[in-house]
């Protein structure tokens, strides 16, 4: 969580220098979802995500240097500069891709799971999605198929209450919860405090066990809150789509702050320990930034349009 927070903050700080020339969607405030989920997954398990994917990529073990270089549009980026922040991939750790068309990786992740089943493999696929993605028809089509064929897929839905500036109230009926939609597709589902990394971890462990046992998909709705603007490095509580008080309320539920306090009071961590860890991570980030800046810009517009027969 700390690493994700510090990386996202470093991106936010660096963004005005205009060396990361692409839209960025930061996960500050939502770190517990990524960290708790990935900790409960096996390294070999697969994952896909959407536009807000830095945290998922990093938690799954994605290469930080390649991510920073990608944001800078460089040749050593994880997509060789072709993708940018909204398209991350690191196949070496099972992070199989992220794309910014809302909902579009849901069926693709289900397809990964379908192939796992067809090939008799046992890896679980985690499909990260925002709550708005459940409004897309493709979510329901995918959920139906996954349920029908009992596919080994774990839907990890981050409900941060907004889709850009649009609150839940103008998008979904107030009298039903997001996770209940999955239940209606015959998929076991539940709601978890997405700002409590232990709760997330425990629930994902249980859900993964269910999925691995061949009983089919599981859907988790994780309640959380995005601190920064929808897209970009700043804050946007002042522009009027949500209340500062709401933000401050959620800030009190800072997953990072609260969890480190919990660990410290349990004697499992010290203030100095946190400090040391931060220093170490900051050095790693500084190194990744330097790596990105040193990496050359890509050349070759026509490369990779088609795959070449091996």
């Amino acid at each position: 969580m700390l690493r994700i927070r510090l990386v996202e903050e470093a991106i936010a700080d660096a963004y005005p220098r205009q060396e990361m020339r692409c839209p960025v969607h930061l996960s500050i405030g939502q770190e517990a979802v990524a960290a708790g989920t990935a900790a409960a997954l096996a390294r070999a398990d697969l994952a896909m995500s959407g536009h807000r994917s830095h945290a998922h990529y990093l938690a799954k073990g994605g290469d930080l240097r390649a991510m920073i270089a990608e944001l800078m549009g460089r040749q050593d980026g994880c997509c060789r500069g072709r993708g940018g922040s909204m398209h991350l991939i690191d196949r070496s750790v099972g992070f199989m891709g992220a794309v910014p068309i809302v909902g579009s990786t849901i069926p693709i992740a289900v397809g990964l799971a379908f192939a796992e089943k067809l090939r008799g493999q046992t890896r679980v696929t985690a499909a990260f999605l925002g709550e708005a993605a459940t409004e897309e028809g493709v979510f329901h089509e995918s959920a139906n198929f996954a349920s029908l064929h009992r596919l080994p897929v774990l839907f990890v839905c981050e409900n941060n209450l907004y889709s850009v500036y649009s609150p839940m109230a103008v998008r979904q009926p107030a009298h039903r919860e997001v996770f209940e939609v999955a239940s209606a597709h015959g998929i076991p589902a539940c709601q978890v405090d997405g700002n409590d990394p232990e709760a997330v971890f425990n629930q994902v462990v249980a859900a993964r066990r269910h999925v691995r046992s061949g009983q089919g998909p599981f859907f988790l709705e994780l309640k959380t809150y995005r601190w920064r603007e929808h897209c970009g490095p700043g804050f946007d509580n002042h522009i009027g789509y949500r209340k500062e008080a709401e933000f401050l309320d959620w800030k009190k539920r800072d997953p990072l702050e609260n969890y480190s306090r919990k660990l410290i009071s349990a004697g499992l961590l010290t203030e100095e320990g946190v400090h040391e860890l931060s220093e170490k991570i900051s050095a790693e980030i500084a190194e990744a930034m330097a790596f990105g800046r040193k990496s050359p810009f890509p050349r070759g517009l026509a490369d990779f349009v088609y795959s070449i027969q091996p």
Partner: protein
Amino acid sequence: MSELSYAEAIRDGFREAMRQDQSVLLIGLGIPDPKGFFGTTSGLREEFGGDRVMDMPCSENGMTGVVLGASLNGIRPVLNHQRLDFALLAMDQMCTQAANWSYMFGGQVHAPVVFRMILGRGWGQGPQHSQALHSWFAHVPGLKVVLPSCPQDAKGLMISAIEDPNPIVYIDHRWLHHVRGPVPSGHYRTEIGPLRVALLGKDVTIVAISYMVLEALEAAERLAAQGIEAEVLDLRCLRPLDREGLLRSVRKTGRLVAVDQAWACAGMSAEILACVVEDPQTCLKNPPRRVTLPDCPTPTSPALAAEFYPRADHIVEAVLEMFGRSREPGELALQPGIEYDKPNPAFTGPF
């Protein structure tokens, strides 16, 4: 007449159409957002209320069918998409449904609905936020497709689109939103169909679409300095296509360059050339040329994006070649200091 930005002109078009007709409905993900959908909806919710300027779920496909249904039942909806790429989720509802309903029910039903989409470009929009697929819609009988390039047309074509009894695809390019120009006040229509002669000339016809009209006008200025008078046609409607207007110009100049910030293969630029070469009365002095995107997806890296997009330089080069001047080394080189991934120097991202 007042001087407005293109975004303000779209908003004025909405306002006039909504004042004229109570049944006009503005809908889209983020339509009432605090940034006013790039400034194109600012103030409209205050004037017309939340029932006529409304947000919607993130459900492009379903909502396209919903507004189509509403249009069959007395409402005139404008469904707005922040990017053309998002509208692609609804290809069945737009192309198989909306486009066909008048025809297949023998002209008994009408679908007065506008599908408005913004064409993205620059600042790392990349492969999934900047696909220029206007040609897809131009392919479909039953749809009308407009891409205004100046504020006056942005307003006039929006009003015409809303008041037309057919499904209309209205596409505004992200890099036009800040461009300013004279806009008549009050209610007026710009006819859907006729192209606009943006500049008169006698030596070569440059046909351009949407934002590329601006690049074509810049190219024409530079060509004028070399003694070549280019006629610039703004192909603001792809369907119906103003074939007569096109032929009138090319019959005069005998030379044709089609400019489209889109892929060439099976695209609108091909249709423009076909229209001219099929005409028995048009005699070209040179083989026609196209200035289009390279045949690859949009790269995100600013380094690749700079090479990706055609500019006035490419248009100038295409015309000069027609006049027998070969390319000079470095002519198409990127100039240091220019930020090719920004619509204007004030732009700082992120979207």
